[in-house]
């Protein structure tokens, strides 16, 4: 049971949240300008990193805000939490590896 620090509500159990997968995949401005390959890339291809990974969560049973989390996908440690639109914090060379 992850303990996720909602930027507004504070630490809550994972069961209050909805997982949103990899963060920072912006919807293309003009999808019609993309090739099928580029579109497939946007739709389906994911970094799926082992280690620190920037991902999205929504506090769906709380304040309903979407936000970003950097979580180590091996240790499950949550390294950073930041709001939508914010740039990922610099976690230093070691922890932030692979983000």
């Amino acid at each position: 049971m992850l303990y996720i620090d909602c930027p507004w509500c504070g630490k809550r159990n994972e069961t209050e949240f909805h997982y949103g997968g990899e963060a920072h995949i912006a919807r293309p401005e003009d999808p019609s300008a993309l090739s099928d390959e580029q579109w497939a890339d946007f739709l389906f291809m994911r970094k799926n990193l082992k280690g620190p990974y920037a991902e999205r969560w929504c506090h769906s049973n709380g304040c309903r805000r979407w936000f970003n989390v950097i979580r180590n996908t091996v240790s499950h440690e949550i390294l950073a939490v930041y709001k939508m639109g914010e740039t990922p914090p610099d976690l230093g060379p070691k922890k932030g590896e692979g983000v």
Partner: protein
Amino acid sequence: MTGSHRTQAGGRIDRQKKINFTFNGKSYVGMEGDTLASALLANGVHLLGRSFKYHRPRGIVAAGAEEPNSMVQLGEGAVTEPNIRATQISLYEGLSASSVNVWPSVEFDVSAMNGLFAKIFTAGFYNKTFMWPRDMWIKLYEPVIRRAAGWGKAPTTSDPDIYDHMHLTVDVMVVGGGPAGLSAALAAGRSGARVLLIDEQSEFGGSLLSLNRQIDGKNAAEWISETVSELAGMEDVTLLNRSIAFGYYDQNYLCVLEQRTDHLPQAMRKGKVRQRVWHIRAIEVVLATGAHERPLVFANNDRPGIMLAGAVQTYVNRYGVLPGRKMVIFTNNDAGYETAIDAKAAGANIAAILDAREEADGELIEAAKALGIRILPGYAITGVEGGKRVKAVEVRKIQKGAKVYTSAPERIACDLVAMSGGWSPVVHLFSQSQGKLHYREEEVCFVPGTPVQKQSFAGALNGSFSLSACLEEGAKAGAEAATKTGFTAKAANALKVDEPAMGRIEPFWIVPGARPVGEGGAKHFVDLQNDTTAADIELAVREGFESVEHVKRYTLTGFGTDQGKTSNINALAILSGILDKPIPKVGTTTFRPPYTPVSYGALAGRNLGDWSDPVRITSIHDWHVASGAEFENVGQWKRPWYFPKAGEDMHAATNRECLAVRNGVGVLDASTLGKIDIRGKDAAEFLNRIYTNAFAKLGVGRVRYGLMCHEDGMVFDDGTTARLAEDRFLMTTTTGNAAVVLDWLEEYLQTEWPELQVYCTSVTEQWATVSIAGPMAGKVMAKLAPEMNLSNDDFPFLSFKEGTVAGLKARVFRISFTGELTYEINVPWAQGRALWEAVMEAGAEFDITPYGTESMHILRAEKGFIIVGQETDGTTTPQDLGMGWIVSKKKPDFIGKRSYSRMDTSRTDRKQLVGLMTDNPSEVLPEGAQLVFDKNAPRPMPMVGHVTSSYYSAALGHSIALALVKGGHSKMGETIHAPLLDKTVTARIVDPVFYDKEGEKLNG
């Protein structure tokens, strides 16, 4: 001969309170404070069960959670429980237990014949045989193997007991209430921190309950009770005994099983919560889980009467039981001596102490000598006499490291062997928390390495085996943990402890018997529960299974209900010897939750029956129940499925309901639809991007149907949206999808288009919705809302009005899912019932007919309207549904648009929605029937689609079906077949709109 093995005095049992119980049908008497194991030993019963593979007689080995053998079937009937360890059962009046997996009895067990084939049943033997003839595996071999499977039996009826869950957040959680844990809790508690102390045993004190020690000039028992009562007096300290931390998960989340009534006589348990799972979130965790003693591995070391020395000491000191009268002690460290001394003091005859170490001296050795106990340094047990109880041991002087005996065998008669092979710290929880272990050569054990969460360790868990160290480390860990959580704490001054000095331990992993391991009749057991022997481990390695994980799986070491608490370290040490690889390089297998088994009932808690998944009901629900409705589960909702009248089946009921709507008037509770208020200056633009069709130009007061797709172009929801104001819309979603759609909208608003000024608010349960439909709907409506202008000009199809209906503030929509004139009346949710009753009353003269989801489905299918999730399955585009008209060509972009031009999605021969009419008008195709063009094709038959919806249409007098058919849109009029189990049904492909193609009935 009850009580014959009780000591004269002492122990923590209440000798005045006698407790009657039965084992294997025989009556015995124990005492308050006993466990089943101690009571049986007090009655001279050692033989409790049989081993798994060879069905060898097995007895009690340990005194706690680490016990590998003594599993019993506890209790009877509905409350019977398999595989409970006798060492963990608090004795209660009327307890009944029996041996598991024996037939006809534990004394005489037919399957002991397996022992004759022991040479065949080596590790992994089943991989090598039972292959020919091929079908004999399923017909003969497997059934025979399965019959031998399992230990105890599950009850055959439901569980009458109650279980529940609790959540608790604390500053400091201390696991283990031995000296280390108690002093940790005390130090933390005194700082004012919120502290939780748990211990699996019936009382706090841990191994201190079994030892003769003085703390601060007091008896240990006194120190324990003073400490516990001080803790109990602290406001923010929670004490849980009979509570096992069984799982240590990420972010200091620990789960604890509290056994609340298992120690009570059955009659006193009624109505009480039997077991409770505590979900703990702790800022700091102090682990003080102690250590388990290790057995020694020697020939036939499994005979009943061969026990762990510390357990013997526990039975003697804590339970006032002498498990044997004539004992042989076999040890590789000083602990065995203390057992000998305590047992002798309690009246046992100590035949000898075999010390695997050639040199041993120190306080305890001297004390034993002073008592005149025979000590044999450098000796080991090389053979055991006795089947159901040890009768004697064969001992020899042995040179360590080589198979050399330096003395002739000597036979020593005894009725008990107490062995100590050293101590294995209870690192389970730490390992579960993802910690890596560190091997301590000196203490010959694995201890926790670097902390990985906010955690610390104290006591025997750390490999600190002296009481003074345990107390000191505990106090320090407790104080530090509290300090880290923001309290001011300091460890109290060190307490004065009277305890014997303990000498060094010498590893001694395997004692060869008279013949090499694996040869001859003797067996060197490593895992008693799974009958894994040292020879099995050798065989595994010989066959190439070198990783400790492979050895575990090939030999099943540590696979049992004890999860190898006493066997894992011995197994890996033996493996290390064979591979000539240091123990830490061999490594351990993975520790996993639970630490000890946990009942399914406790894990499920109260989440059973109607609480397994919340039932959502509308405010009109009780009317439906009272009217005899049958219900359908739609997501979490209960919706009326149909309203049968006396004697009607579903078919008759829906025929009647549908005809009422087509010819008169029907009424439906549509309150379950999701409703979302969407507001802001960009609301229209937002909807334009979300829906496939255009919303910008929708007039205020008007309503439009829309389809929502995922980015991959596949339909995922539909519904109508009304424009309440220039900047405000009310969206409806399908019943099951309300929350999903809201999340979806928020996701786009917050993550993709934060520049749009739009707010979404769920109002699903603000509005109850009653839908009246049919040619007479207008008449009913007129009665309900006399002030409302219902004329088609003033209140046209796809518009809404606000006003008063049946005296209630209401919003009325003219939309239609049936093709009939329909008014969907919305009133505040909690007034839904009042509205419904008013509608029934107003409609009575028109024989207004309540209808359910089944009729709704038929009526919409007659009109060719889709249901998301029925006509669609995540692979269906709007175009496939023949709804290309709803996909805007003009809008530059909307969710899903880009995907339509992909190669596969733009094919024209995709599966497309069509209607089907069977050749035989009364034949109703089964939903889910597959369709083929060539009914004579061999299998695998090329399938071209399937039936998504199918009903008998009473209005049309024939069956109708909707189907997705490959290229269906261009195959109107063609013949298609549905090959079923017993026949093939032929149908014609038709337009999916079956009823009132021109839409003439919409206006009544």
